[in-house]
């Protein structure tokens, strides 16, 4: 049930603030308990401690990112600290340099900002066609829709559509 503040003579602005704060706290609680449940059974308490140490606004983003990753992978994948750190920094408009071993999960740090902002498009520059294919397949695991463009791909009739904005690309070639 939704409590309607307006009938109680409170200004609209205040109502908005109150609603926002209410939803915020509700979401945070929910996200936190869900994350706690999903992560602690995998022995990821350290991750939760790290999230708890964040600023309040980043805190919510971190939980949101966790939940998004959980949900797109059916609860299989829990982001690791560096993936969250890199993903959230990207989401907040920071440039990053990541030096991490092969197979450490750098792809997920690219996935997080894309899940958090569905309108964003990322260009991923990759040296080899083989790597591009692997990269694209890996992104698909997280429900990101990749498009590999190289000399082999016929883009002439491609149409790129993103939520709310649609592009119709006519023959380019």
């Amino acid at each position: 049930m939704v409590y309607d503040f307006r009938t109680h003579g409170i200004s609209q602005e205040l109502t908005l603030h109150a609603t926002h704060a209410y939803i915020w706290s509700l979401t945070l609680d929910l996200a936190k308990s869900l994350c706690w449940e999903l992560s602690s059974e995998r022995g990821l308490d350290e991750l939760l401690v790290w999230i708890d140490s964040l600023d309040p606004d980043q805190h919510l983003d971190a939980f949101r990112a966790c939940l998004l990753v959980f949900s797109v992978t059916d609860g299989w994948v829990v982001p690791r600290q560096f993936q969250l750190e890199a993903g959230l920094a990207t989401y907040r408009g920071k440039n990053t340099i990541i030096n991490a071993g092969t197979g450490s999960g750098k792809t997920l740090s690219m996935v997080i900002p894309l899940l958090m902002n569905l309108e964003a498009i990322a260009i991923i520059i990759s040296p080899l066609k083989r790597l591009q294919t692997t990269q694209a397949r890996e992104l698909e695991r997280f429900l990101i829709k990749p498009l590999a463009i190289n000399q082999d791909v016929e883009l002439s009739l491609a149409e790129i559509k993103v939520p709310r904005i649609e592009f119709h690309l006519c023959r380019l070639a």
Partner: protein
Amino acid sequence: MSQMLTKGAYNAIVVSPEQLFCDPASGAVPKLLKLLQMNRTFLQLIKHVYVDEGHEVFFSGIERHGIPAFRPSYGMLDKFLPKLPNTTTIHVLSATLPPHVIRVIEEKLFGSRERKFIQLPLNRHNIIYTTRTIADINEYKNLSFLVPRHNPDSCPSGVIIFFESTARADNAAGFLNETFRTSHPTCGTSRIAASYHAGLSQTYLTRVFQQFCGTETSGERIDILCATSCGATV
């Protein structure tokens, strides 16, 4: 516009760096560049640029030791980035970023832009480091623990020992085989170790490698490779 076909929603575009520049020889404009030039709205939606295998900026993108860049597009990314909106973030991902490589990348891609550096251990959890002090570098006695004492078949298999020179790799392999034959005279001339370096022929290296993997038809096995850095590509 009449020729629109498939409908799709893409939020990641995976490309070779060459897709971002006109071909220097023919002047042909690649597909993605055309798209970026034609459609301002599309351009505005590019929020992140990831340079995967970012060390390529250094290794393939710039002229080094007097040899021209193998893939000049990597070195020209700094010319492409200003075409994107100011809010677009740039990310470099790699597992090979020693300081001199980072310096070039920072210079080329970031300039005065602020960046966050995330360094992870490049180790794997199943790697153990130990140090053993030896009296003489040309003594190979400290490797003799690899030679089985009693049962000649109990040699640890799949061992690669790295050396800094081909001569030392050869000597170590000789030492191991010699020790093996001395302790097991019944085994005749069979060997357990072989050297593996660029001074040997391709045919020989292939055969040794097959013996090492246990896929050689004759059934002869090599358990220990004494390699130089070329063994890292095994």
